[in-house]
C-alpha cells in the first residue's frame, strides 16, 4: 500500500492516536451509575446505554468524543491511502532551527523569569530568539534587547501594574 497524501496520512494517524489515548483515559472515570440488580440493563446493552445516558458521569462525554475522533482519523487515513493527491501532498522539510530555538527561548523565559526577573530574562530571550532568524547582527540584537527590556517594563510593570518580578532574587 502506498501513501497518496502524506499530510493526510500523518494527520489521520495523529487523530487516531489522540482519540485512543483519550478513550483509554476516559475509562478511568465513571460513565454513570452502576446497573441496579434485576434491571434489564444487565443483559441488554441498549438498555444499559440509555440507563447511563440518564445520569451521564464524568467519562461519558470524553469517551464519546474520543471514539468520534478516532473514527474521523480513520476516515482521513483511509482517504490518504486511496485518493490520489497532487504531488503526493508531501509534508516537506521541517524548519527545525526556528522551531527548536523558539521553543527553547520560551522554556528559558519560563525558567528564568521568577528567580531572575525581567531585567535579565528579557535580554536573554531576545538574544536566543533572534538566533532563529536568518540574519544575526550583534549590534541590532543588543539595541532591540535594550529597547524591549525597557519597553516591557514600562508597559507591563509601570503602565499596566502587572506583578512581574523585575530584578533578580538577590537584588530585590
Amino acid at each position, binding site marked *: 500500500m502506498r501513501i497518496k497524501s502524506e*499530510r*493526510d496520512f500523518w*494527520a489521520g494517524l*495523529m487523530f487516531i492516536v*489522540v482519540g485512543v489515548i*483519550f478513550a483509554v*483515559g476516559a475509562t478511568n*472515570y*465513571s460513565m454513570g451509575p452502576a446497573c441496579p440488580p434485576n434491571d434489564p440493563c444487565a443483559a441488554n446493552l441498549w438498555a444499559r446505554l*440509555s440507563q*447511563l*445516558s*440518564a*445520569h*451521564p*458521569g*464524568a467519562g461519558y*462525554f*470524553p469517551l464519546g*468524543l*474520543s471514539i468520534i*475522533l478516532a473514527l*474521523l*482519523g480513520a*476516515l*482521513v487515513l483511509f*482517504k490518504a491511502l486511496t485518493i490520489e493527491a497532487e504531488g503526493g501532498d508531501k*509534508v*516537506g522539510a*521541517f*524548519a527545525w*532551527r*526556528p*522551531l527548536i530555538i*523558539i*521553543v527553547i527561548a*520560551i*522554556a528559558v*523565559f*519560563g*525558567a528564568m*523569569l*521568577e528567580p531572575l526577573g525581567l531585567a535579565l530574562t528579557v535580554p536573554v*530571550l*531576545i538574544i536566543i*530568539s*533572534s538566533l*532563529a*532568524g*536568518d540574519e*544575526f547582527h550583534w549590534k*541590532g540584537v543588543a539595541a*532591540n534587547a535594550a529597547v*524591549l527590556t525597557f519597553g*516591557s517594563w514600562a508597559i*507591563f510593570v509601570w503602565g*499596566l501594574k*502587572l*506583578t*512581574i518580578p523585575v530584578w533578580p532574587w538577590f537584588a530585590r
Partner: protein
Amino acid sequence: MDLLHNLGIGFGVAFTYTNLLYAFFGCVLGTLIGVLPGIGPVATIAMLLPSTYALDATPALIMLAGIYYGAQYGGSTTAILINVPGESSSVVTAIDGYQMARQGRAGAALAAAGLGSFFAGCVGTIIIAAFAPPLTELAFKFGPAEYFSLMVLGLIGAVVLASGSLIKAIAMIILGLLLAQINTDVISGTARYSFDIPQLTDGIGFVVIAMGVFGFGEIIANLGQPAEHREVFTKEVKGLWPTRKDFLEAWPSVLRGTALGSILGVLPGGGALLASFASYTVEKKLTRNPRIPFGKGAIQGVAGPESANNAGAQTSFIPMLTLGIPPNAVMALMVGAMTIKGIQPGPQVMTSNPQLFWGLIASMWIGNLMLVILNLPLIGIWIKLLTVPYRFLFPAITLFCCIGVYSLSNSTFDVYLTALFALIGYAFYKLSVEPAPLLLGFILGPMMEENLRRALLLSRGDWTTFVTRPLSSGLLIASALLIVIVSLPTIKKKREVAFQDAD
C-alpha cells in the same frame, strides 16, 4: 423608540474618557497588527488579554473589539502598497489594489478601501443594534437540548464555510472539545486527564492554546519560509481623494459589499474572510464592462471586498453577543474574555449588562470613525512601519506572548505549556490542519458538555430528545444539510477552487 434609547445608553457609555481612550488604543493596535504581516488579530488579542485584567469588562471588550475591526483597515494598507496582505481577509484586495498602486493610484485605492470600510462599519453597527434584541428574545426560548444543537450547528457551520478539508476540520473541532475535557468535571467533581498535575485540574487556559498555536506557530512557520523581496510604494502615495470617476464606480460596489458582508458575517464561520472573497466574486460577475479590467487595477475590486470584510467583521459580533456562540476564532477569544471578566456569555448579557452590550456596539461606530482618521491622513506613519525588518519584530512578538502567558495567572507552568503548544501548532501547520476549529471547539467544549448532560438528564437518557423537540431538530437538520451540500461534487469543486485562491 427602543433602538434609539438603547443606542443612547451605548453612546453615553462609549463617550466617556476611559472608553474613548481604550477604543483608540484598540484601533491603533489593530491597525498596527493589520499592517504588520506575520501577526494576526487572534494572537494579538490572546497576547493582550492578561493586560486587561486591571480593566473593567466594558473598556476591555471595547479595546479587544477595536483590535479586530482595526486589523481589517490595516490589512488593506499592506495589501495595496506591497502586495502582502496583512490579514487573510485582505487577500483579494491585493489583486486589484496593488495594481492600482503600481499605476500611481495608491491614494485612490486606499481611500476607496478606507471610506468603503467606514460606510460598511456604520451599517454593520446599526444592523447589530437592530437585530440583537429580537435574536436575544428567541434565544431565551432555548432549553439545553436546543442550545446543544445550536452549538453543533455553529461548529459545523464554522468549518463548512471557512476551512479547507471538511473531515480534518471536524476532527479538529472534536480535538478541541477533547482538550477542553482536561479539567474538573463540574457535576461530579472528578479531575479528568490531569495526571496529578494540580495546574491541569483547572483546565488549560485558552490563551495558552491560542498563543502557542497561533502566535508561536505563526512565527515558526514564517521563519521557515525564505525571506522575500518586497517592493514598497511609499513615495507615490499622494492625492488621497479619489476622482469623480473613481467615486461613481466605487459606490455601487461599496453598497453591494456591505450588504453581502453583513449577511455573511452573521453566519457561523463567516466574518471578514469569507465576506471579502464572496464580494470579489460578486463584483467580478456584476460589473459590466469595467473601465479597467479586474486584476489590472479595477477600483470595484478594492471597494467591494474591503466594505464586505468590514461589514462582516462587525456583524460577526451578533451571534457572539446574542447567543454566546462564537462564529470565528476572534469571537471565541472575546467569549473567553467575557468569561474571565465574570460575565456568562449568552442572551442574558443584554439585560444583565446593558452598559457593556450597548456601550460595545456604540464604541464600534466611534472606532470606525477613528480608523478612517488613523488610516487616511496618517497613512505615512504606517508605511514607515513597514520598513521595520521582521528580524526585529519576531523577538518582540515572542517576548510579548511570553509575558502575556505568564501574567495570565503568574504561572511559569503556563509558559511551559505554551512551548508545548507551539510545537503542536507547528505540527498542525505542517499537516495542513487548521487550528481555528480547534479553538472554537475548545471554547465551546464545557458549555456543550453541560448542555448535553442537562438535556439527557431532563429526557431521562433518551437521545431522541434532540430530534423530537422541533427547534432542536431543525438546528440539527440544518447542520446535516450543510455537510451534505458541501459534499456534493459540484459545490465541492467550487469550494476547493475558492480555497486555492486564498492560498
